[in-house]
C-alpha cells in the first residue's frame, strides 16, 4: 500500500513510512483486505502488490501448502500432486479474461500466459541440459571403462570434463530461473478461480422460483427485541456473540437435526461426522485463503515440542478451525481414488460451523459466530452428472424447506459474488421479517473439478491405474443453516418441525 506523494518532502515521506503508526495503519489495511464480502480470496498477485509498499516479510504472505518449490530446503514436503491443467485454462485467454471480468477480479491473464511460456521454454532448456549431462556422463563412463590408464585418456577426457562442468554451471543457473518462474506460475495458477458455468449470470442475481410470497411480513420489533421478548434465547458475553438457546429452542434444534438427517438418509445420502479442525492443505485446496483470518479461525500454535509432534512437517503448520463446511469432506477425500462404480456418491454431515464475525456479517444471531448446519457433497464423474446432481440437491433443499411454509425464493448468484471454487451457485433465501429482506438459509454450489484437481481426488475403474483416472466433479450444498432457520421460525412464531413422512 503505497503512501501517495502529496507534495511532501522525501524525508518526511520516509519518516512516515517507517513510523510505527503508519506500519500499524498499513497492517490494518492489510487486515481490512481480508474483509470477505463474497468470499473473494486475496490472490497471490495482490499479495505481491501489498508487499511492495509494506515492510512485511514476503515469505510469510506468499506461502502455499499445495505447491512447495524444490528450492525450499525440504522442511515441508508437498502433500498432493497438483493437476491444475494450466495449459488448458490458458488455451483460451479470452475466456479466462471474461471470467475475471465477470468475477470483478483484477488479474493479468497476459502476464500469466507470458510467464507460462517462459516456464515451458526454461523447462525445455533444462531438459536439454539434463539430457546433455546424462549423455556426457554416459560417454565419460564408456571412456573410463575402455580407455582408462591409456595415454590418450587424459586428452580424450579433458574436453568431456570441461563440457561437464560447463553444463553443470548452466544447469545451476537455469535451475534458479526455473524455480523462480515455476513458483510464480504455480502460485498464480493456484489463485485462479474456477471457470464459470454457462448458466451463471454475469451481473445480477436471478430469482428463479418464489414460494409463499404472499406471506411476507415485516416486524415493528428488531430481531433482538423479538428474541429477548420470546425469552427463548439468552444473550451472553461469555464468548464472542455468545448466546444460549433456552429449552424450547434447544429441543427444536435437536428435532431439526433429526429432521434433516433422516430426510437425507432416506434419499440415499450417507451420514458422516467430521472433525472441525483442518490443516492448511485442506483449507487451500478447498479454495479458502488460509491467510484470511476473517474467513476462518486460526488456532494458537503450540510449541513444536508440545503434543502432536510426531510429524515435523505438519506440526509447524497452523491449524484452522471452521467446523462443518466443504473442508469437512475435502479433508477426508484428499488423495483418494474413488471407484467409478460408487459414483455418483452422496454424503452429508450435520454439526457446528464456526465463522469469524466481520463488519459484513448479518446483524444479530443471523451473523453468529457459531451455528448448526447441515451440508451435503455430491461426487460425480462428469460435468453432466454434476449438473443433474446440482438440480437434485436443489430439489431436495426446496422439498425440505417448503413444509415450513415461510416465504422463500431460489436465486442464482452472479459471477461477481461466487467463491473462487464455485462455477455456479443457487441460494435458498427466506424472508426475515425483522430484517425486511431475504436471508440465505441454504445453497448449492457446483465446484466442477476445481477442488479435486487441487487435492488429488480422482476416479476411475481401477485404483492401480492412476494414470487413467480423472478428477471428480463435486457439488457442495449447505442444505440448511439450522440456527438461522430457528431464529426465523421464532419470528414467524412457528416452532413445530414438519412431520417426517415415509420414514
Amino acid at each position, binding site marked *: 500500500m503505497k503512501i501517495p506523494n502529496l507534495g511532501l518532502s522525501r524525508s518526511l515521506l520516509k519518516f512516515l513510512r517507517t513510523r510505527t503508526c503508519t506500519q500499524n495503519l498499513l497492517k490494518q489495511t492489510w487486515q481490512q483486505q481480508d474483509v470477505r464480502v463474497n468470499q473473494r480470496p486475496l490472490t497471490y498477485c495482490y499479495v505481491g502488490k501489498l508487499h511492495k509498499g509494506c515492510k512485511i516479510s514476503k515469505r510469510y504472505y506468499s506461502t502455499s501448502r499445495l505447491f512447495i518449490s524444490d528450492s525450499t530446503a525440504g522442511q515441508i514436503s508437498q502433500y498432493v500432486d497438483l493437476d491444475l491443467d494450466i495449459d488448458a485454462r490458458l488455451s483460451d485467454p479470452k475466456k479466462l479474461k471474461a471470467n475475471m471480468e465477470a468475477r470483478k477480479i483484477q488479474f493479468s491473464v497476459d502476464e500469466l500466459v507470458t510467464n507460462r511460456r517462459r516456464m515451458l521454454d526454461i523447462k525445455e532448456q533444462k531438459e536439454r541440459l539434463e539430457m546433455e549431462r546424462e549423455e556426457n556422463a554416459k560417454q565419460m563412463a564408456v571412456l573410463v571403462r575402455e580407455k582408462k590408464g591409456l595415454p590418450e585418456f587424459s586428452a580424450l577426457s579433458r574436453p568431456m570434463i570441461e563440457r561437464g562442468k560447463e553444463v553443470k554451471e548452466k544447469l545451476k543457473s537455469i535451475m534458479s530461473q526455473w524455480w523462480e518462474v515455476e513458483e510464480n506460475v504455480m502460485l498464480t495458477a493456484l489463485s485462479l478461480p474456477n471457470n464459470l458455468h454457462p448458466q451463471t449470470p454475469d451481473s445480477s442475481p436471478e430469482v428463479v422460483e418464489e414460494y409463499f410470497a404472499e406471506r411476507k411480513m415485516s416486524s415493528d420489533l428488531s430481531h433482538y427485541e423479538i428474541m429477548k421478548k420470546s425469552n427463548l434465547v439468552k444473550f451472553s458475553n461469555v464468548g464472542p456473540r455468545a448466546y444460549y438457546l433456552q429449552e424450547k429452542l434447544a429441543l427444536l434444534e435437536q428435532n431439526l437435526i433429526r429432521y434433516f438427517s433422516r430426510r437425507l*438418509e432416506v434419499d440415499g445420502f450417507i451420514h458422516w461426522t467430521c472433525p472441525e479442525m483442518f490443516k492448511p492443505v485442506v483449507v487451500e485446496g478447498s479454495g479458502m485463503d488460509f491467510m484470511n483470518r476473517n474467513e476462518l479461525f486460526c488456532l494458537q500454535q503450540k510449541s513444536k515440542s508440545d503434543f502432536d509432534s510426531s510429524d515435523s512437517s505438519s506440526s509447524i503448520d497452523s491449524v484452522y478451525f471452521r467446523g462443518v463446511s466443504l473442508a469437512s469432506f475435502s*479433508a477426508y477425500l484428499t488423495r*483418494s481414488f474413488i471407484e467409478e462404480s460408487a459414483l455418483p456418491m452422496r454424503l452429508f454431515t450435520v454439526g457446528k460451523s464456526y465463522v469469524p464475525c466481520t463488519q459484513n456479517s448479518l446483524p444479530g444471531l443471523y451473523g453468529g459466530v457459531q451455528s448448526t448446519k447441515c451440508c451435503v457433497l455430491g461426487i460425480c464423474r462428469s460435468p453432466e452428472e454434476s449438473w443433474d446432481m446440482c438440480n437434485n440437491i436443489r430439489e431436495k433443499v426446496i422439498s425440505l424447506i417448503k413444509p415450513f411454509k415461510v416465504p422463500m425464493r431460489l436465486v442464482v448468484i452472479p459471477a461477481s459474488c461466487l467463491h473462487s471454487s464455485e462455477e455456479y451457485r443457487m441460494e435458498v433465501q427466506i424472508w426475515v421479517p425483522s430484517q425486511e429482506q431475504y436471508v440465505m438459509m441454504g445453497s448449492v454450489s457446483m465446484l466442477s473439478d476445481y477442488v479435486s484437481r487441487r487435492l488429488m481426488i480422482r476416479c476411475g475403474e481401477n485404483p492401480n491405474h492412476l494414470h487413467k483416472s480423472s478428477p471428480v466433479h463435486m457439488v457442495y450444498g449447505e442444505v440448511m443453516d439450522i440456527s438461522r432457520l430457528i431464529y426465523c421460525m421464532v419470528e414467524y412464531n412457528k416452532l413445530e418441525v414438519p412431520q417426517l413422512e415415509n420414514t
Partner: protein
Amino acid sequence: MSRSWSHLLLCCLKGCIHQAGCLFQRMPPVHNRHLKWCRLNSQLTSGRKHKQSAEISPSEWTSPLQLEPVELDLDYLCNPDSVQDIQNNIGNRKGVGDIHLVRKLYECYQQETDPIKRQDLHRKFINAALNIPNRSHPLAPIGDESKARLVETVGTQRNFDFEPLTVVEIGEKLGHLRTDKLTHTTGPKTYFFKDGFAKLEQALIRYTLSKILKKGFQLVGVPELIHPDIVEGCGFKTTGETVQVYRLCPETYGQVCLAGTAEMPLAGYFLNEVLDHKKLPVRVAAVSRCYRAETSGVEEEQGIYRVHQFTKVEMFGVTDGNSSSGDNLLSEFIGIEKEIFSELGLHFRILDMPSVELGAPACRKFDMEAWMPAKKFWGEISSTSNCTDFQSRRLNIKYRNNQGNLRHCTTVNGTACAIPRTIMAIVENFQEKDGTVLFPKVLWEFMDDRTQLSKSYHHGKIHWIKFSRSK
C-alpha cells in the same frame, strides 16, 4: 481521496493513531475497488438493506466480560487452624497450591498501609488463594489412582469364543470409521464416523436426551467459544505447558478458548445469577462438541479413546450450599448414568475416585469405567463431580436462602454420554464372530430399526493414493 489522505496524515502527525485507523477502515482499499462493487452487489443479491434504526447489538455483546471479584472463603483459607488440613489436602492431591504463601501474603496485606502496595499484595494473595484446590470430601479415598474405591460392578464380562477386535479394526473393516492417514489433513487424534457410526452417534444422543429430559433436566444450547475467565472459573487452566484447552490466535480474535466440555459454558450460563432457593436444584443439560488438546501415548488409549474433538451430552446441576444437597445431587447424577449404561447392556464399574484424581475443583468424584474387551482394560466413559462452592465463588453463582441471605451455590456436573468411548464400549462388547455388531435393543428405535452394524454400502470404494513427488 487526497483530501482523506491529508486528514489521515494530520491525524498521524498529531499522534491520533486510533482516529486515523478508524478513518482508514472506512475507506475502500485503493487496489481492491472491486470489493466495494461486490459489497454493493451483495446488497442487491440478498436485497440487503439493514434496518439501521432498529438493529442495536444487545448490551451483553457490547460489554466486555468482567467477572465480579472472587469471593473466597477467607475464614477458612486464612484461619491458622486450617493450615494443616489445607496442606494435607494439597499434598493428597497433585501438590498444586501453597497455603503458606497464601497466609504470608494475607498477613503482609493486612499490615501494609501504602495503598498501591496493598493493592498489589491483594492481587498476589488472591492469585495464590485461587490455586488452592477444593476441600476433599471426608469419605473420598486418599492417594493415587490405585486407591480408587470400587463402589459397584454392573453387568457381567462377556466370554468371547474368538479374539475380539478393537473398535478401530471393526469400524475400518466395515467402512464406518477412519482414523488413519489424517495427520496432514485434520491432524493426529482425529477421526471420521461414517454411515453406521455417524448414525449411532445421533442415536446415542437422542437416547441419552430421552432419558435425562424425563428426569427434569432442561436442555440448553451452549456456545463453544468462550472467554478463558469462564474456563478458569470452572477450575481448568488455560495457560501453561501442559494445558489442554485450545485457544484462538489472541492477536486476531482476542481471548477465546474452545470449550473442552459443556460444563464450562453451562457454568457460564449461571454467571452472576442469584437463584431462588425454592427452585433449587436446577438441572440443565447440553449436547456439545468438546475440544481438548490432550494426547496420550498409552497403547490402550489409541484409536477413538482419546481424541481432540468429540460430542458429549453433559449434565450440570446447581443446588444450595448444604453439603447434603450436593451429595444428593451427585448421587442422583450417578443414578442416571448407571441407568443409561445398564440399559445399554454395558459391563462397567463405578469408582469413588481418590484425592489425586479429583483435580482442583472437585470435592468428590465418581467415575464409571466400561470394560473394553479388545485391549482388556477398563476405560472411563463417565465422570461425575461435586464441586461444592469452588466454581460458584469464582463465577458468582448465588442463591437467596430462607432468611434472605445470599449464599454460594453448589455445582455438580456429570457425563451422561461421551460418544466415542460409548461407541467403543458398545462395538467391542457386542461384536459377533462374523465381524458384525449387534446394537443394544434400547437403541433400535433411535437407529430407525437398524439392529446391527454390517458392511457400509460404499466400503472399499475409496482408496488412498500413494504419492511421492518426482520432478
